[in-house]
């Protein structure tokens, strides 16, 4: 091999060695690493207040008499509801909380009907920029009063909400919650019913 060829090969190798690091640097700047933002972490808490409409849907009888329907009207008017909720985040999406509330509606004879739900909530919260959408399930007790009768029953409340986070502390939104309230009467099993209700409320939420 002549000196001329050795000189050319050496220059080529040198050129490659120079350009490889430069190429590598360009790769790092052209494909930056995607970073995930956690809005909430373990220990973050929130407190919200909600109020809105209460809509009685129907009563379910799982052992209807022959010839009668299992589903019947509640005979209640559309009423109002409100509640206070405290929640604590387990991580950015999962949260655990407690909720205490109340509702009212009226019977055909304008007698007031009240329910006071006390539930524990477990929810998963989706985040979309400034919006968050928790879905959750509440379970607890429901204190029902009508006329001179009072009943304490189990209660399940699956629901979904949509919040607009105004800033890091405040959020505003709406909630749609379904109430499943079984009423088991041991003394008269044929009077056992499952109450189905729906509430739509608007909320103000404070994060701290």
């Amino acid at each position, binding site marked *: 091999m002549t000196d001329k060829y050795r000189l050319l090969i050496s220059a080529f190798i040198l050129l490659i060695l120079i350009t490889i690091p430069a190429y590598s640097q360009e790769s790092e700047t052209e494909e930056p690493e995607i970073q995930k933002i956690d809005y909430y972490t373990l220990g973050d808490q929130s407190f919200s207040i909600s109020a809105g409409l209460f809509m009685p849907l129907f009563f379910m009888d799982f052992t209807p008499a022959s010839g009668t329907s299992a589903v019947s009207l509640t005979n209640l008017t559309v009423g109002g509801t409100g509640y206070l909720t405290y929640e604590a985040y387990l991580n950015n999406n999962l949260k655990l909380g407690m909720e205490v509330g109340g509702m009212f509606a009226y019977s*055909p004879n304008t007698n007031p009907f009240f329910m006071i739900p006390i539930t524990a909530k477990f929810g998963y919260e989706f985040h979309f920029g400034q919006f968050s959408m928790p879905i959750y399930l509440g379970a607890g007790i429901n204190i029902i009063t009508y006329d001179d009768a*009072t009943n304490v029953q189990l209660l399940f409340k699956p629901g979904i909400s949509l919040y607009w986070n105004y800033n890091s502390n405040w959020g505003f939104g709406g909630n749609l919650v379904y109430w499943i309230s079984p*009423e088991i009467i041991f003394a008269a099993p044929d009077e056992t019913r499952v109450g189905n209700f729906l509430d739509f409320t608007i909320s103000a939420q404070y994060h701290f």
Partner: protein
Amino acid sequence: MKKRIYILFITLFLLLMFSCSQTGIFYRLEHEQAYQELNNLPNAARLSDLVSIGTNNIVATTDATDGYYIGNGGPNIFFRSEDNTNTSVDDWETLALPAGTSFSFSSDAVVSSMALLENDLYISRISRDGTSIKSGIYMLEDLFTANVAFDTTDDDAFTDLSGITSGSWTTLVEDESDKLNTEFTYDYYKLHVAYDSLYINLLRYKLSSSTDSSPELDESLLHVTTSPDAIDNDLGVSTTEIVMTNLFVVDTVADDGAEPPVKTNLPIVAPIEKIISADGTNYWMILNGGTSSQREDTEINGKINWSTGINANLFGSSTDVAVNITEATDVTRSSIKFSDIYEHTTAGDIIVTDTNGYIYTSGDDGGVGTWGAIPLSKSGIGLFHGFENINTLEPNNIIVGTSAIINGSSYSGSGYYQLDLTDTDNIAWSTVNDGNFADTDTYISTDLNDSSIIDFLFGADNTELLASTSLNGVWLNKLKDALRIWARE
């Protein structure tokens, strides 16, 4: 942490198990129906001594004039015309009351009792003001005159009660006690009607001073008359006194069976609870008493406070003017009271209720020696009070009201129950129509179903039934769209 969660769930479970009501609230709402508000009577109106004038004498083809329903509301007497049509609305009005002849009643005057004998209305009235206690008995005559002529014209005469004034009343008896005396007595009248007679129970109370608020019953006298209009401010005129001191209670424990029977607890000084006679032959009287504790019963918030330690006594007589009424020995009970008595004319049975919540029935011969060994009762019912024969609505059935009672145990009212008298030897709770002649849904939708019943009244040719309650007003049962529904007056 796990342990705390388990404890929480167990606590919730126990709370649920022991906190459940015996009644389904959702079930009740499911069946609730809107009841009608028929008339203008206040929702809390409390009418006792319900009577009707002429409503059962109406001949539909010839008489267009209405009869009246009249009730004693305490300070006022309410009345309304009965209407044979279902569409019109009749308003209740207040009846003008006597102002007093030898004195003037004060503004706090109340009607203490009211009774209807034939077509004459009798009331006793009392007022207490700073200086005296005034009481009297008054009569309103000839409120209805039926036309007995067999023609088609309507000439039954009803007094227009709207036109009654205080001067329309006839004064029978008046008494005024001067409270300024250190110690004084006053008269309180209770009126009863049995068959064709008016009974006047004169209760004479003693007060130790003008500020004494606990009157003591000093005397209980009973007068009877078939001509009360002849009383001339003196019960001795046209009335016969039934000597109460001749009443006795047989001491069945000490009685060795030898004649005469051992008598005890003489005399009984107490208000007469009730007098009945269905046939004018046999008379029955409830007179609770016989111990040193004989204070008047009080009513608080619709619940009756019964005195304890008093014997319940039922007396029977074969004549209403008997001077000596002897005791029906089999139906004396200690430490309770009899609250009501009813004679079922069809079955010939006597039914008595007591403050233990029991209903006693006699045998079909009316003999007191055959009282039902096992009295009827209902769990959670304080006592039964108020009967009505609903044979025209439900054959062989009667209804009995419930009443709230306080005095240790507190019971709420529970409306009424139905008794079946088909088998007079075994009177039992009715199962006909599930034990309710009325539509159940409308009944449980009203306040009537948990009320204390004061009185029932049949009217309008026995097709309408009035029920008066302690705290929830007056209710009317009538036929609507083939259902017997309750509506509020």
